[in-house]
């Protein structure tokens, strides 16, 4: 019970001052909630001041033009704001998990592909017979050291990694939908490895492509040595 704290809080609220912290009990909290709603219901009372809008835009411009970390900020207050900002952003990233997040696929911005996987001690290893991979069919393979999918498009071979770039769950191919799906967080990738859908705060990377060739009726992928056969 803190009658004085409540009275002061309400006086400040009504006077348009910043209310001061105190520890309300349940009923006091309910009264504050109601007071806030009453105050907020005032017609037209919730428009931001133009001075505030201009000033915040200036502060943001300062922040956005900041060189990344090492450069000391011009004002000591800026540093604090940036730190507060960063931690809130991190927290927001967590909070935002419940929301369907920004999905990528904009060709100009993020790299369309994660690049090609080229293992240090790679060797060409057979993943299928040529006959097993007719045009348009997605063929899964597991070499122990590497899992992926290979397919043929207009006669040309393509292969992508079969591991989700978010947390490493193994992808499966949803043939009717023509996409690779992650069983863990509903991420899906196109057969070429682009992210199609996801529910994460930040879009996962596209799938790495694998080097693939066809030799004497066999399809081979450049893969690292098997875990049980170290190079």
């Amino acid at each position, binding site marked *: 019970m803190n009658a004085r704290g409540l009275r002061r809080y309400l006086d400040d*609220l009504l006077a348009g001052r910043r209310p001061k912290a105190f520890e309300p009990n349940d009923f006091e909290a*309910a009264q504050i909630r109601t007071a*806030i709603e009453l105050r907020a219901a005032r017609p037209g*009372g*919730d428009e931001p001041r133009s001075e505030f809008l201009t000033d915040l835009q200036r502060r943001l411009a300062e922040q956005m033009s900041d060189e990344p970390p090492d450069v000391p900020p011009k004002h000591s207050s800026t540093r604090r704001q940036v730190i507060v900002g960063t931690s809130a952003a991190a927290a927001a990233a967590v909070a935002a998990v419940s929301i369907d997040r*920004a999905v990528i696929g904009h060709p100009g*911005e993020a790299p369309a592909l994660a690049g090609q996987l080229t293992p240090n001690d790679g060797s060409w290893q057979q993943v299928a017979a040529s006959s097993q991979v007719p045009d348009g069919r997605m063929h899964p393979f597991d070499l122990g050291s590497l899992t992926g999918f290979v397919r043929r498009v207009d006669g040309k071979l393509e292969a992508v990694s079969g591991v989700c770039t978010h947390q490493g769950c193994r992808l499966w191919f949803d043939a009717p939908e023509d996409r690779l799906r992650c069983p863990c967080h509903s991420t899906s990738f196109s057969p070429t490895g682009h992210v199609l859908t996801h529910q994460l705060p*930040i879009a996962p990377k596209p799938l790495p492509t694998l080097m693939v060739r066809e030799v004497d009726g066999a399809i081979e992928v450049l893969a690292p040595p098997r875990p049980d056969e170290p190079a």
Partner: protein
Amino acid sequence: MTAHHDPVGPRPLRAVPAVPDTGYPDWEAVYQDNVSWLYRTLFARVGNRADAEDLTAEVFLAALRPLRLTASVGEVRAYLRATARTVLAAHWRETLGREITSIEDIEQPPDSEEAISTAPQRVAHVLDRLPDRYRRILELRFLRGNSIKESAAELGTTVANAKVLQHRALRLAAQVNDGGGP
């Protein structure tokens, strides 16, 4: 948002549009287009300008730098609302040690009136259920922003009585608002 939901699905899965929503050209555009509804969303939950301004600034300072401009407008707004939810929760933890108000998960777009504030409807509901003089003192003080002296004069009573009236009216309103009272 169109009402085309799978009622049993946990979260709708959103597809990357074949032709991507071009989103915003730069952070200034993000700011200009969203600062107003975001401020109003926060004001509705703190009830005073100073806190609403501080929290709005905190949201943008936190959210803009990590924001991907490839995100669509809807995604940017959802992200800003989520950031505001976190910032508001931290504000209550730090000042009153408990969550007084929150930014809910809602179906409506974040910049819609329903998403910004339900205070007007809730207040109307509460005021309707109060005795006449209680309702009037709250209207005079909170909705019209009159001083206690002006309000007392309008009600034809003393300042001391007006204070008592306001005190009791708010207590009753809080009970009604929390679903308890008459």
